[in-house]
């Protein structure tokens, strides 16, 4: 499936959309396609929103952000994100924030078909009063732990190194929370560097069988400027360059028009 068709078929206005990736294999090309197609009122979900979320937010695609750490990794702030939160430009952005442990377990619950997950966390932080968590008592010991609600995106988008012709997907290196994010979602789109005849086994690889993936699109370079282990390195200059573009509404608007 071609990327524009796949995004058109899978991502709708008002959807809860997770584009996951933990520094590695960020589905940037798919995010840009969502911007181009002018999707609106999205609830964007991701543990570590970075450049492509800054771009989606600046472009006015998002109504809400569900996250645990938002920054330009290794560089600094996300200025479009800050502009939306601090000055409501171009739109107000509702926030629902968690810790990484909380977000990861929300995906685990979603992937497991459970309505919630339990962790030892949030106690004594101001996070608990600004987000959706509940105390839960161990029925054996009486200890009070924290429950977080399951996350089940309407669509999860990830980028992977390879798929085979049957649609089985393989990714390796730092694989983050991508398996959980796909399994938790109602629909899923995987962009890949290449489609191959057979997936030879690789150390550390995660394989997602075709029957749990809705669509696969070959998008070589689809994770740039982040990296795809075995294919290309992170373009660190692009991360630094984004800092300058994103600081200025006019520069960002010019970037958006050129997209």
């Amino acid at each position, binding site marked *: 499936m071609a990327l524009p068709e796949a995004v058109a078929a899978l991502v709708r206005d008002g959807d809860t959309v997770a584009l996951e990736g*933990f*520094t*590695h294999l960020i589905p940037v090309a798919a995010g840009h396609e969502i911007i181009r197609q002018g999707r609106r009122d999205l609830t964007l979900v991701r*543990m*570590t929103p970075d450049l492509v979320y800054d771009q989606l937010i600046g472009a006015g695609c998002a109504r809400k952000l569900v*996250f*645990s*750490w*938002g*920054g*330009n*990794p*290794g*560089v*600094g*702030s*996300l200025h479009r*994100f*800050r502009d939306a*939160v*601090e000055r409501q430009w171009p739109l107000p952005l509702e926030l629902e*924030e*968690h*810790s*990484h*442990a909380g977000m*990861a*377990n929300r*995906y*685990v619950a979603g992937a497991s078909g459970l309505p919630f997950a339990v*962790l*030892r*966390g*949030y*106690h*004594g*932080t*101001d*996070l608990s009063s*600004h987000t959706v968590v509940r105390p839960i008592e161990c029925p054996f010991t009486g*200890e*009070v732990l924290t429950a977080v609600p399951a996350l089940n995106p309407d669509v999860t988008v990830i980028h992977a190194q390879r798929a085979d012709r049957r649609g089985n997907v393989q990714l390796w*290196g*730092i*694989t*983050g*929370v991508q*398996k*959980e994010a796909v399994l938790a979602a109602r629909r899923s789109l995987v962009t890949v560097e290449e489609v191959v005849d057979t997936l030879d086994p690789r150390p*550390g690889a*995660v394989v997602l069988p075709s029957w749990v993936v809705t669509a696969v699109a070959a998008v070589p370079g689809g994770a740039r400027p982040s*990296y795809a*282990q075995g294919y290309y*390195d*992170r373009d*660190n200059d692009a991360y630094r360059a984004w800092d300058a573009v994103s600081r200025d509404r006019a520069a960002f608007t010019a970037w958006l028009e050129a997209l």
Partner: protein
Amino acid sequence: MTGPVTGPVTGPVTGPVTSSPVSPDEMMTVAAARALRGRTACFVGIGLPSVAANLARRTGSPDLVLVYESGTIGARPTRPPLSIGDGELAETADAVVSVPEMFNYWLQPGRIDVGFLGAAQIDEHANINTTVIGPYDTPSVRLPGAGGAPEIAASCREVYVVLRQTSRTFVPRVAFRTSVGYGDGPGSRAALGLPGRGPVLVITDLGILAPDPATCALRLTHLHPGVTVEQARAATGWDLAVAPDLADTPPPSAVELAALRALTARGPAGPHEGNT
């Protein structure tokens, strides 16, 4: 090679004190790296801690196990990672696990000796803010958020914090408590059921602070070369107490400084994602 230690390690690794000029950030990083001596495993927070932890592996702690929230255990990067998800971390690690496994199986049960955190703001009881400055709903500065820090601060056996010391970053009470240090003071951690000991060291560009055992308030225990108590107090938003046995941090040895400069020359000067 080095046995477990109880107090902070402050002495230089080997060799003569260097004669080259040393920046305050370099002194901070070297002091932070020294503190890791004798520890088995360090959960490396985003930002300044990563440079210090990598320096530690090149100086006094060659066997230190670096654990990153991206899922890498025992990484041996040859240059400072561009981010906590740098590909070299995965390529050189003993094991790479998923992010949920990292938080659930490795961090949560208290297997990790030291959690090493950066911060945007810290307060007298070592509570950390990386969320917001100003009111939550109408912030003057929106910071990146919690990341892995709340559970690192709760679950590691000990926590070290590294950040630059100014009256803007060292505040009497953080506006938003993202990660708990000593809460409201003695007894808070136990009442909250937090298993780890909390922040036992705060390492800055001016010196080192540690909690007063009686009050859990951070007080000055070490001054870096050339820094005065007055400077440290002026850079602190509360009435900073000084430990009775206040000591001087030995300056970086030639070995330490060479290792640090070799490290930072091969990568970025040091990512500051915990700051704005």
